[in-house]
């Protein structure tokens, strides 16, 4: 069972991702900010992180920078944001994201990436 | 006032805002043979420009402001305008 951690402060967005991922047979856990995400990430084993940028308490950049310091938790991370500016891409990759997607997410595109990064699950 | 009206000519200066459009339209209707002087006009609201375009008046002087002149001349020079 492939396990995904969704990190976003917007419950609607979390639900949206959850619906997509669960429909494809993946299991999902959620975190509402970087701090909670880091705790969950370190406690569990995830095969993919989907991370928002703008969050209270600890943002997505900081979360990834912290996460990438943990040798045992280097699963791919997709950063998701509404900012298309080039600088954000750079900062995302610099912080440890492996892909950057601009909202609104196109489900098909998202799921293609997810499938490539984690493999298929039988729904 | 950005527009000074006389019997024969409306002289536009500085920035002609949308508030002046009513007055301009009224004056143009009342003075069908009068001309328009834009020399000192720095900018005019598109609504004012549309009004001038519709009036097809002779422009006795184009704006000193080269940029504005470039933008509006083709539109307003439909009449028998001295360049």
């Amino acid at each position, binding site marked *: 069972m492939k396990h995904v951690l969704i990190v976003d402060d917007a419950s609607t967005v979390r639900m949206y991702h959850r619906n997509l991922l669960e429909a494809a047979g993946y299991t999902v856990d959620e975190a509402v900010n970087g701090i909670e995400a880091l705790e969950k990430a370190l406690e569990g084993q995830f095969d993919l992180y989907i991370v928002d940028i703008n969050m209270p308490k600890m943002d997505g950049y900081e979360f990834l920078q912290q996460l990438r310091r943990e040798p045992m938790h280097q699963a791919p991370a997709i950063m998701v944001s509404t900012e298309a500016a080039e600088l954000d891409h*750079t900062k995302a990759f610099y912080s440890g994201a492996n892909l950057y997607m601009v909202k609104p997410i196109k489900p098909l595109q998202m799921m293609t990436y997810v499938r490539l990064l984690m493999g298929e699950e039988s729904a | 006032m950005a527009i000074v009206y006389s019997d024969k000519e409306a002289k536009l200066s500085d920035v002609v805002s949308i508030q002046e459009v009513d007055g301009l339209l009224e004056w143009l209707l009342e003075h069908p043979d009068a001309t328009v002087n834009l020399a000192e006009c720095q*900018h005019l609201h*598109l609504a004012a420009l549309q009004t001038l375009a519709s009036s097809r008046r002779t422009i006795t002087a184009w704006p000193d402001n080269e940029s504005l002149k470039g933008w509006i001349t083709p539109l307003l020079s439909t009449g028998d305008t001295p360049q």
Partner: protein
Amino acid sequence: MTPLLEQFISETRDLLQGISEQLLEVEKSDDKKTTLDELFRVVHTLKGNTGLFEFPDLTRVLHAGEDVMSEARENPALWDQALTDYLFDAMDFVAQFCDSIEETDGNPVSDSALANTLAANLRAYLESSSQETDAAASEPEDKPATKKAASKTTAKKTTAKKKTAAKKTTTPKATEKKTTEKKTTSTTKKAPAKRKTTRKKAAKRPELATGLQPLDEALFSVDRAARLSAWLQCAGHEEVVFVEYTPLTECFFQGDDPLHSAMSTPGAIWGDLDCPCGETALADLDPYQCVTKLHFISSASIEEVEEHFRYVPDQIKVQDISVSTLLAPLGEEQNDALAEEALTALCQAIEARDHAAVERDIDAALSLMNVDLAVANVLTDMKRLLTHAGIDSAIQQIGLVTLAHYLCYELHAEPFAFTEVAAPEAPEGVSDDAVSGEAEQSADQSSNSDSDDGRENTDDASDEQPLAAAGLEEDDLEAMEHILQVQRRILRMDSDDPWASGRVDAVINVLINCYDNLELADARQQLDVVIESARSGDIESLVEWIEGQLSYVPPDLDVSVADDDDEDVDHDLDDDVDEDGSSEELESEQKSNQENAPASSDTKAATSAPASSVSKPATKPTTTAKEPESKSTPSITASRSVKVDQEKIDRLMNLIGEMIVAKNALPFLAKRAEEQHGLREMAREIKEQYAVVNRIAEEMQDSIMQIRMMPFSFISMRFPRLVRDISRRLEKDVQLIIEGEDTEADKNIIESLAEPLIHIVRNSLDHGIEMPAVREKAGKPAAGTLTIRASQEADRVMIEINDDGKGIDPEVIKAKALEKGLIDEATQQRLTDREAVNLVLLPGFSTAEEVSDLSGRGVGMDAVRSAVEKVNGTMALDSETGKGTRIRISLPMSIAVTRVMIVESDKQLMGIPMDQVLETVRVPRSEIYTVKHVQTTVLRDRIVPLKSLNQLLALPSPQTINEEDEHAVLVARVGNDVIGLIVDDFRGSVDIIQKPMSGVLSGIQAYSGAALIGDGSVLMVLNLKEVL
């Protein structure tokens, strides 16, 4: 409705509340920056959510809001009341939209016009503030829709720096692009063959960006003469941006001046107005309808132009074009329109700069030609160029040569070999896709020229590209190319950050996963080899391997940007370490850095990190201990509150109600054990047991009540906005003070209080507080004060609303009450001032001279009073003319449990709410007097009218008297009156859970409800007010 949509609505409402609070906070706050940051974040989240659905209007409004917030965040001085108003309007729209989604089950009715106006208001606000800075000299009065904003000019004059700050994000990319474009054009002519191949590759390029918009039509719709003048003005540029701007017809009403917007576009070079007004008679003209379409050219980048028009993105079409495209001909094709010899002669004349010959040749050719031909157009342009006054001869020559190229192309002739050609572009490929084709070419070209070293690899390996040749599905291939591009980019970031090795590991995992999942065994084997070397520090071979996999290697966009950014982030990192870095963590990072990436971990990491780790424990000994706490607390708090369905709490409430009733049976049981069965010991034990159960039940009830308790702030938080809106509309200046916001009461009470309080506040603002000028004249401060204070007194909640307005004139009230027949003249004389002002609480009383749109909606204070009384509350009004008005509302803390006095009358038990009971007395029959047919008695020197409960309830039997010839009299307060109720006997007080009457009984007004009591019987609770 889908669960996602439900989630969306519920979250949106939460976010709106947050926004509302923050908005008010901004107005007050000294530290605007922090509040604005938070506000931006919430608006941003909200907007992000809307992107998941197809609600364009909603997104448009929120997008505008987000942009404004973003600007305001850069410069808090921008903030003012008008902006708050706009944002409030926008949030109201969002709230209504949500309601509509809910009502229509996901197909909301949307007022697009309103959405446009709201968005435009916000945008116009931004626009106006930047316009002012652009042209500080001119007064921006041309904005009817933004009168308020305009009046605030002074506040915004200080925002000069803002624009540049806001643009920072796009600038690096833009500059980059421009420089590469320049290179492109200079190399274009050299290698047409090479260009073709790159173009082909580009087609496969997994660029996820949207394609270029075809603008050809717009460009070619521009008059040829105008295009020529545009070309002339663009001389010296090679690539420019062509813009078609079609403003909304009603844009003037939104405060737009499209001409100003267009002319103030960064880098605007040339513009042309397509306006049909010349064909409209002046008398028929509606000058307030925008019917003009604007075409213009800018030397700035597309990004800068889009940034400038970001508030009307759907009204502009933007495209990079090469300047020579401006001269591209349009017209019918006819490749034999000009004889080859004539063409050659013309070209030679141009080459020789023999303008007289050129002109002669053109005239000759044109005289034989259909003027609609493309060739004729070119020739006409040439002639225009020749005859154009004051033209620079070099530019003239370039123009002629360019046109000659087009001419050759149109005639399908070999291009004439002009020497010393300064022509910006060969007109090759000019056809339907002239514009987009050329733009694309140059984009590709730029990548070539920029990434020469990267290209070497791909060029060599271009015949066999494993990934492209692997026979993947198109989607997968595209996605993979993108993934690989990005991973390459990440690997090329060589930095000494503590997480750099983790970043590389993540990339490796990405690669392994992808190739595993695609079952590309061969490539996977190669990958293992390079991964091995990457892990031992040779990242470059991994990068090269990825490049070998790619069909297209992009230029290194990062290098310059990333360097800057790295510095930036480095600082961030240092800060982080200061904040929460534990020394072990740092050391282990250090170690892994050295192990995994010795090549990249340079001296900086080796020297700076240990230094900080040493100094850390000394300077901040507490940080290590604090850290786990600070990390874990937020998530615990996050999971500590649970959203529970109201129904579940209600059920709990009912159960505890039954429990209390059941427990109340125990004393009855003890009594029976003792009296009927003579088991005194047993009775004692039951009573002991009862005490235990009673204590637990009470605690339990208390806890459950606590769940239902809500703070007063639940309603009071609406007031700041309400007061602000109303006072602004009335042009009054009002300061609102709210006290005791954490006073708690039952959810039902709090909720039932909302409407009456809003009404009272409206009344105070509308009729109470005077206009600032009037106040000053009366010697009061111009700003009125409205105080709303909640407090707890025993088991009741007191709400006090004070204003320092003009008060209520008792004489006016009396006169009005008389006029309306509410009182008679005798009463008028007798009433004290205090009683008089309380007349406004009577049904059908309204003091407003005129019915205003605020408070005079036909419901007066009597509606407020009845709402308060519905939840067993009372209210009283005090007023002093000229000084102000005070309204006091007293409410039970909970309506769930009512304490009632049980009385007996005609062998029936009835309950009377304890909060109405003043005292219970025994009155000797001899002390009951009949005054004017009313039975009365004197209690503590006060005459109390007496009523027989049996009589009131139309029960036939007379009230019984005890052995001492006394009546049992319950003294109760009903409204403002005190009366004595003659009953048969008292039975003590008891807590009951009152249930409203249902079914046929619900029509009986004499009882407010019924409850079960301990012995299992039903107790009817009297509604004294109705009974009397």
